[in-house]
């Protein structure tokens, strides 16, 4: 994998299933190198699009959750998805790493490109895709294992345990948790506070070297101090990763995101633009009403 693949959408993709049905296609070391290189690139030029949807529709049974979404997500930036509850933000997020595959009633139409490859093509392996697009959930969900084992989990299931100690340490450092837990790596992750657990979940996600991190209201279950730590962390993560974050907290979106997409009831993407533009001078009256709290 070369850094050029970041600039072209037509690059054949790594998450494609091969005949040997190997799902160990991802070289995590290569991925993180690429992320580093591309960060340097994106500092000097306009960000590339990592994820792009075209006419993305999602139905749960008869209910339509997303209605013809067209959205581009730029590399190494924080994209916030905001909107009233039930408008399909989580659904959109789960489409990106195909977690919606796990919901029997979900039906997805349209296209969703990750680096130019439609992830809903038949030859895409969702397991390999999820190793490149990590996810952090609304409620911290560490495994009932030790702190170390939580972070090592993703690498171990890939049998990728070379320099495991160093990589666990690095992930914990990147998640701003190392200093707090370095002396208790073998104790249970469940003994950590909620905010620490959530940063552990972030460390666990970045340990496998993803390119994109999806976060679904990652701070909504946390107190204000833990929340601000997570917010700081997200801004740092954007130097290495592309971050897509769902939040119902508009101040949070305004603080940490570069781009904001506003979903409104009915699963409609009403407006997407630079965060500053959305919050100061949105094109749509409905977005303005929503942001100023007139509804939703």
């Amino acid at each position, binding site marked *: 994998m070369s850094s050029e693949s970041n600039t072209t959408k037509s690059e054949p993709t790594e998450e494609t299933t091969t005949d040997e049905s190997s799902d160990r296609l991802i070289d995590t070391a290569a991925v993180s190198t690429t992320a580093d290189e591309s960060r340097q690139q994106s500092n000097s030029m306009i960000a590339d699009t990592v994820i792009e949807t075209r006419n993305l529709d999602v139905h749960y049974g008869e209910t339509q959750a997303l209605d013809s979404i067209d959205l581009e997500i730029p590399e190494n930036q924080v994209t916030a998805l905001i909107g009233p509850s039930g408008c399909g933000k989580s659904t959109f997020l789960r489409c990106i790493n195909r977690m919606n595959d796990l919901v*029997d009633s979900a039906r997805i139409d349209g296209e969703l490109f990750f680096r130019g490859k439609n992830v809903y093509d038949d030859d895409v392996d969702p397991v390999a895709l*999820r*190793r490149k697009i990590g996810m952090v959930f609304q409620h911290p969900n560490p*495994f009932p294992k030790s702190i170390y084992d939580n972070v090592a989990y993703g690498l171990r299931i890939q049998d990728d345990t070379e320099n495991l100690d160093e990589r666990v340490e690095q992930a914990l450092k990147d998640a701003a948790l190392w200093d707090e837990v370095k002396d208790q790596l073998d104790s249970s992750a469940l003994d950590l506070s909620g905010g620490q657990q959530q940063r552990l979940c972030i460390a666990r996600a970045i340990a496998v070297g993803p390119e994109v991190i999806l976060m679904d209201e990652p701070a909504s279950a946390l107190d204000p101090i833990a929340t601000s730590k997570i917010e700081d962390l997200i801004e740092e993560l954007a130097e290495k990763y592309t971050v897509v974050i769902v939040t119902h907290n508009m101040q949070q979106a305004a603080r940490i995101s570069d781009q904001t997409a506003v979903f409104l009831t009915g699963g409609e993407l009403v407006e997407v633009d630079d965060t500053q533009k959305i919050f100061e001078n949105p094109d749509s009256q409905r977005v303005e009403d929503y942001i100023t709290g007139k509804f939703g």
Partner: protein
Amino acid sequence: MSSETPDIVTSDTDASRTAREQTYRVLFLLCGLLSILTTVAIILTLLGDALTFWNEVPITDFLLGTNWSPQIEGEYGVLPLVSGTLMITVGSALIALPIGVLTAIYLSEYASERIRAILKPTLEILAGVPTVVYGFFALVYITPILENIFPTIGTFNALSASIVVGIMIIPMVSSLSEDAMSAVPDSLRNASYGLGATKFEVSTTVVVPSAVSGIVSSFILALSRAIGETMAVTIAAGSTARLFDGSDPIGSFLLSTETMTAAMINIGKSDVDPTSLTYKSLFAIGLTLFAITFTMNVISNLVAARYREEYE
């Protein structure tokens, strides 16, 4: 005045309600005590008769003796019976534990809603079949099939008894293990899927370890059930007390074997004099059996408590 008093002062009807509550309390307490008393009474009866037996046959001869031949030789060594019970227990465990856990994983992680809705009750029906039916099933169907593989197999043998007891306890293992696996929160499965785990990896690295206390409890309960199983083994394994022969393990399973429970049945249904030593030996076996299953239940509780701590 009464109209000004807030409605929180007790009135007569409230007093009678309190009395009623008190009555219920006592009633429930009595019911609880009744079951405890019954248990204690059973243990004391067992203990009393067992002790009079051990007055005549030293407890060391009983526990360490390798010959069980009460009526003919007057030998009361319980080890052959313990050996028979262990053989059936281990044999049935070898069948039931793996199949039960794999069934539970299938039901909890792989089966669609519809298949689960059919399969789970079906399995639980298996648990409701009278054990005497299992015994005849072993005798009439399983042993003849085994005869094709082991031509020397006896009409009564430990192997078919093990198989049938194994089948009998599969539902217990699968049902309780499945309950434990279904109780593992979906958030943990999502975390694992989100890290690029396959369904198999989610099952083996997250669901099973998180449900381990329930799974181990189900094992121990199932083993207790196998140890205590009577009808099926008496019918299928016969009544020849015989010590397990370590030099020929398979051969041992092909022969008739008497378990502790089968020996008790055989004594109980023979017309021995209730004051005789043979009759009293029944209580000594019973107490030994009780001690074994009781220990297993204690272990089960300890295991469950220990792992639950780690999980929550």
